[in-house]
């Protein structure tokens, strides 16, 4: 009987050892998970979650350092999907926002181009010293262009 016990124990030890080496050496599949989480996010790159973009937030969620309810543009739907994917509990959204697009009051714009460099999706066009405007169809409503404007000519218009 002892031979059988020892044989099984040795096989188990070897298998355990092999697995522990594999888990350290082989690339982890966290990268895929981050990608999957990132796919569920609305990609507004608005940083309202406190992270500088959707992918950093996805990484933090996967690492467990960020809660899943921090994405206001994604809404309840995103929280539900994230909870589903990660096997966590659905929790109410920390903060909600209405979907918006930015509008530049073209009469007030002085052409400083500060907003243009703040836009994460290149949805603002216009040269220095000339009027700027927003490509509405590409605007994600992240509000990042509002703060840098020195003349407060950008406002957020809710999408109906």
């Amino acid at each position: 009987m002892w031979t059988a016990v020892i044989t099984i124990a040795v096989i188990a030890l070897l298998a355990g050892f092999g697995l522990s080496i594999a888990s350290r050496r082989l690339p982890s599949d966290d990268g895929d998970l981050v990608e999957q989480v990132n796919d569920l996010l609305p990609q507004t790159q608005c940083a309202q979650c406190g992270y500088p973009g959707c992918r950093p937030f996805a990484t933090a969620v996967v690492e467990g350092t960020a809660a899943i309810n921090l994405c206001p543009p994604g809404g309840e739907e995103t929280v539900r999907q994230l909870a589903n994917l990660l096997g966590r509990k659905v929790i109410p959204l920390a903060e909600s926002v209405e979907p918006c697009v930015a509008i530049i009051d073209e009469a007030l714009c002085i052409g400083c181009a500060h907003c243009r460099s703040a836009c994460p999706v290149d949805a603002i066009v216009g040269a220095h010293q000339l009027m700027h405007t927003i490509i509405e169809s590409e605007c994600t409503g992240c509000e990042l262009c509002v703060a840098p404007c020195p003349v407060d000519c950008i406002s957020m218009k809710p999408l109906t």
Partner: protein
Amino acid sequence: MSAPTYDLGTLHGGLRLPGHKSASTGQAIIDVPVPAQLVLPITQHVGDPSQPVVGIGERVLKGQLIAESDGTLSAPVHAPSSGKIIAIEPWPVSRRYGENAPCIVIECDGKDEAVLPADMPGNTPANFTTLAPADLLTKILQGGIVGLGGAAFPTAQKLMQARTCKIDHLLLNGVECESYISCDDLLMRERAGEIVNGAQILMHALQIDVCFIAIESDKPEAIRALALVLGEINDERIVIKQVPTIYPSGGEDQLVQLVTNREVPSGGLPSDVGCLVQNVGTAAAIHDWVVDNQPLISRVTTITGDGVASPVNVRARIGTTISDIIELAGGYTDSAKQLIIGGPMTGKSVTTDRVPLVKATNCILVSSETPSPGPALPCIRCGDCAAVCPVQLLPQQLFWYACADDEDKMREFGLMDCIECGCCDLVCPSHIPLTADFRVAKGRIQELADEKARAARARQRFEARSNRLEREQTERETELAQQKASAKKAGPSAIAEILKRKQTSKDDE
């Protein structure tokens, strides 16, 4: 070449509905006089809104272009009569989503003065066969012609799409399977020649030589009128096909199946199985535009139901308000309760008769009873809905998933193939408003897909931007490094020399 003969295909499910058509087929089509005011929505078709090209106060002539097509899927709008543009503003319209839409309002001067034929775009020679098919399509595009069966898909774009596929059959849809509606029936009786001519133009534009005109067997007068015309012109390529009177045999995919026994694949178009379906009214409109240079500015529509005094078919200018047309049909009766634009199954009820007649309006139904069969009861899973579904879906299962908001499952069970015919509603013993639920669910699935596409685009733009910023940064760094390196190469003596030269030039001043 004469048309091949096919055995009739069979339609799954469907219903034999009470016709209620005889009320409006008793007399010939009446022309509605030009009203004092015409209201023309800039979106009367599937696709992007057209763009107004006239200003307020401008005088327009009958047939003049007032809004041009904008975008890839769109149709222009023409002035139906002469007059002055008095406003471009939101106006109540009958649409599935939203109640108000931007409209061009014309105050008619009653002269009905038309644009000279010479000023029309792409003036056609009397014989269209001398035109190249591509030129003919351009001409059709300029006429503002859309599918007149009710869907209002821009005809030119449908033809252009069809030209990218291998098409061998043209199907003219004269089925008109929904109860109450009889405008196509009357049109076929009175304008059979124009319809056949329109079919010939379409066949030339697509370079095909088989055309079936599908008509329900309960329209003997229309069949006789068309047969008479076909006998006169002796065109063997065009054949009349009688189809059984079953709702919804007039649906595009259903008609293809019935007439040619080919099944349109899920998510596909009739062009995938070599067919192009056009309404008979559309064929007549194409004739009017190509041969007579008259763009789509009027249409035949049925005014019926027990809420109007004398049901009738009328030919009215696009933009005439419904109230004007109902007046012509003897006005409302005391029992009038509900106004529906379209037929009883697929129509939309509206709350005001100020809405204008648009290109897609094939019927104005004023009914007495409000169609409320009672409160919805729980589904008993009897399966009647699956038996009548013409697309062979499982409505009860879809309803189950719709209640659970399970979009993936609904898609898996073919919700997007639902044609919203309303058969399942009608047979449901629990009175569950299935079609309405499916419509909402379809809208939601579409919305989710749009959101997903938006997110993907935003992500692409964000990543492109990040890459660009990174590239600019490395470029700056390498440039700086290069400058540093070249300065080092020159060595301290060179720097000293430059400084000295500067010093001397300063001293000279």
